[in-house]
């Protein structure tokens, strides 16, 4: 069983920090869902709703940064507490970027809705569902410090990359065969690129989960580095 901090106020502050990060992460997930739903339904209202949600995530970023700085100043954390707070400082940036990418998708929706439909978007919606599933798995891994789940997230990034390349090629073929679709096709390609980037941020999140739980920094080295110990030798 995980031991609790002797200072219950510190325990509560760390718990609140994690809960607030998970809430922020879920808000960003809702933004992605709303943006892609707007894409599929050509719904300008939903697209504008997505843009409006970004301010709340930006506020989360500032508030979580402040919480981390206060915790560092007041508690001088060590070991896993220090790793957690350092990681939250990084994750808020990843999550804020996810919200920005959702906003970018919504902006492309507004561009696309100003013109005739270029194609069905069901396959883009499928890619979005895959990205969101993996992203939410990474959030769950963070919430429970589940290293096995985090490893799965990292491994599944290949699925997202494959979906991205398939959709990219599909749009490219359409633009080659019908030059009138180039402008709209580039917008759709941008959307799938944004989704692929969101998958990369989910991978970052999962890598940080492994660092918090085990003190093992696998960034830029991959899962195989876990076999070699944690000293960065």
């Amino acid at each position: 069983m995980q031991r609790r901090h002797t200072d219950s106020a510190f325990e509560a502050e760390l718990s609140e920090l994690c809960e607030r990060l998970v809430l922020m992460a879920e808000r960003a997930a809702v933004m992605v869902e709303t943006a892609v739903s707007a894409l599929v339904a050509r719904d300008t209202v939903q697209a504008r709703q997505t843009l409006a949600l970004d301010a709340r995530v930006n506020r989360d970023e500032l508030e979580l940064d402040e919480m981390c700085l206060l915790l560092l100043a007041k508690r001088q954390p060590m070991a896993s507490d220090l790793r957690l707070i350092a990681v939250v400082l990084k994750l808020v940036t990843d999550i804020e970027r996810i919200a920005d990418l959702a906003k970018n998708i919504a902006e492309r929706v507004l561009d696309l809705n100003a013109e005739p439909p270029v194609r069905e978007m069901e396959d883009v919606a499928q890619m979005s569902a895959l990205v969101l599933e993996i992203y939410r798995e990474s959030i769950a891994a963070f919430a429970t410090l589940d290293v096995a789940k985090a490893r799965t997230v990292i491994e599944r990034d290949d699925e997202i990359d494959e979906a991205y390349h398939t959709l990219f090629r599909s749009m490219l073929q359409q633009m080659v065969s019908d030059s009138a679709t180039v402008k709209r096709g580039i917008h759709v390609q941008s959307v799938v690129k944004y989704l692929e980037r969101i998958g990369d941020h989910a991978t970052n999140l999962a890598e940080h989960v492994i660092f918090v739980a085990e003190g093992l920094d696998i960034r830029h080295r991959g899962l195989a580095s876990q076999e070699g110990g944690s000293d960065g030798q």
Partner: protein
Amino acid sequence: MESEQEQEAGALGMASGSVLRGLPTGADGTSIEALGLNAFYGKKQVLCEVSMKIRGGCVTAVIGPSGCGKSTFIRCLNRMHELGAGARVTGRVALDGQDIYGPMVDPALLRRRVGMVFQEPNPFPTMSIRENVLSGLVMTGRLAAGQADEIVERSLRAAALWEEVRDKLKEPGLGLSGGQQQRLCIARALAVEPDVLLMDEPCSALDPIATARIEELIHTLAGKFTIVIVTHNMQQAARVSHDTAFFLGGALVELAPTNRLFTSPRDSRTEDYITGKFG
């Protein structure tokens, strides 16, 4: 094969050249090795089978909760523990390979090589600043004629106190502030030219500024001496030491490079203690 301390890596893989990477080390300093060290007060065992290597010219911090044996441990390193009533030691402590508990070893001579600074500054109350610095040499009859002034200045400079007291060397040591008194005690310990400096919570009675001065002093002494510091202040241990040893219940739990121990300790008991999940 190099020990983990010798690799001096740090789990975070900091860029080489980072000031955070490490304090200066003195490869030629006196190393200390405890092997199966046990210490007792009467029937009560306060240290159990402690085996650890302290690198020469480095600063090693010893941390742990009250009663864990950390002060007893360093008192075994200059044979002060055995001065207590009913106190005894078994096992081996080697200074550069030589067993300090060997039959030919004179404890008084040993304590010249292994100086100690205590929790409360304790300058001799009837002595001036100058007399305090020279007291160790005077008491052991080793003060050569004509060397006193040079030794006083050198020792006070080494203890970062010279500029503050150079014009009042004949004034009582007790007239100094707490932090200055502690640096005077360090100067006194350095005057006999030890190889090792043991510090038993040297800053616990000092304010943050005086503490910072002592820590700065430890930085400058690192490399010239082997320093072992007992502290309750984990941030202090993290700031001043190359290696940190965590003691619990009289036993050594973990000895590791400080950079790693405070970011990714290997033993869950260390993790619990340094994150405040203890007791």
